[in-house]
């Protein structure tokens, strides 16, 4: 099966500034892929390269087997795009924006789907784009990206400015599209939404891809916090001198650890003692990412 997105050594530099450094990435049809990184990490540059809005300085990229430069019109036919800094024509109504963009599509769009999407998002398409709030403009942008129900969606921070209810609707819509086989390339620096929606994430730092992993694995590799309360006194420190286990805090009845990797050795060490309560917390994706941003070499 052709990859929805395939990049090989894709690089982009502006004079002496390297915006994207040898990006190798493969995203499959039907996958929701989160592309994470702080501002300026190269997320938007990657999307603009895929759409041939800018040209790479090295490497190549293809969408569904089509070269992003030589077959750029065909690539854009297969792509729906939501820019991070969405700008619309303020004098046009939402419906007119839909008509305008539909007219540039090679095949007729499904008007019923557009209407149902607008209804789900509670967006009035008769209002002028210039009179819409930021959240409603974003909803219109999402509708425009989904207009032709293309096999690839490139969404640059899609839920920016949306309220939590609208965010959930958008996530549902994206899951539905993914179930139809649409690949969703989802750039964000909002970790919680990536955690909610994406199967795999790529972490970009200063133009370099520092990790590509399923969200669950990414979290599993990281430290987790463990807090143990004892009925009697706490065991002596030497009991917990285990690989991957670091004691953080100790008082008369409670111990707090940071555990890397498997938790089983700690549980075995605790077994002889009278444990009253044990709480473990997975790291949030924010913590995982902050660890990446601080640890990964630039």
């Amino acid at each position, binding site marked *: 099966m052709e990859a929805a997105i395939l990049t090989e050594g894709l690089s982009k530099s502006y004079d002496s500034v390297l915006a994207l450094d040898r990006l190798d990435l493969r995203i499959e049809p039907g996958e929701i892929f989160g592309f994470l990184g702080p501002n300026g990490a190269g997320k938007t540059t990657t999307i*603009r390269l895929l*759409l041939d*809005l800018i040209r790479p300085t090295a490497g190549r990229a293809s969408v569904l087997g089509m070269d992003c430069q030589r077959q750029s*019109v*065909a690539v*854009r*036919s297969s*792509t729906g*795009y939501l*820019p991070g*800094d*969405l*700008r*619309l*024509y303020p004098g*046009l109504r939402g419906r007119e924006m839909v*008509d*305008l*963009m*539909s*007219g*540039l*599509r*090679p095949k007729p769009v499904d008007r019923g789907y557009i209407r149902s999407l607008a209804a789900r998002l509670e967006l009035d398409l008769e209002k002028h784009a210039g009179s819409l709030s930021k959240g409603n403009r974003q909803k219109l942008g999402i509708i*425009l990206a989904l207009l032709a129900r293309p096999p690839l969606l490139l969404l640059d921070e899609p839920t920016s400015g949306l309220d939590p209810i609208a965010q959930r609707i958008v996530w549902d819509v994206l899951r539905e599209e993914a179930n139809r086989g649409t690949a969703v390339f989802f750039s964000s620096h909002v970790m919680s939404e990536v955690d909610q929606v994406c199967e795999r994430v790529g972490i970009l730092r200063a133009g370099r891809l520092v990790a590509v992993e399923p969200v669950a694995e990414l979290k599993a590799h990281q430290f987790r916090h463990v807090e143990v309360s004892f009925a009697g006194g706490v065991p002596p420190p030497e009991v917990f001198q285990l690989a991957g286990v670091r004691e953080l805090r100790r008082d008369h009845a409670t111990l707090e650890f940071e555990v890397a990797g498997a938790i089983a050795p700690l549980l075995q060490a605790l077994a002889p003692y009278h444990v009253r309560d044990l709480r473990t917390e997975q790291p949030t994706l924010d913590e995982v990412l902050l660890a990446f941003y601080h640890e990964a070499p630039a």
Partner: protein
Amino acid sequence: MTVGRFTRKALRDVHGAAIGAGVAVFLVVLLHAASFPSYDQIQVMHSPDALKGIFGEAGSISSPEGYTGAYVSNITVPLAIFTIVLGTRAIASEEEAGTLDLLLSQPVGRPRLLLSKAVGLALGMALAVADALPAFLLGGLVAEQQMSVWRFLAAVVSLLPFVAIFLSFGLWAGALLSNRALAGTVSAAVVVAMYFLNAIGGVVE
């Protein structure tokens, strides 16, 4: 694939400017057509040849044809500058407004987008120029002028290639320089330079 909607959008974008230009063309032509009798008695313009060269047909403004040709050609420069301003605005303003990315991410080749914009703008300007015809007819009635409508129409139609040339120049300048002010300044400078070259050419002949 149709880009007709995009052409209509371009036409809609310039409709205010085109109406304004149309009103200006209408008033200028009406004023000139109605005031022809004031020039009717001028038999010979006693000016140096060089000056006659610069003003083209000015030497024969006592005839309806020469008079009409003179004022129609005088419309060309302001019309050219106005057309260039619209042309430069077409692409540069998309970039300034940030809508260019959304547009270029659609499955249409850039030349085609540019062409559909150009067609919309050209239609707008053609409608503005067409306002000269009713003004001429009305002015002719007032001044009881005998000049043939067809000859006047030919003079007006001769403006259209200029409009097309300056429009395409403005579009390219706007697309390449992506800054409306710079593109407009460069284009206006070119128009003025062309005007003077044309005038000097008349003197040399």
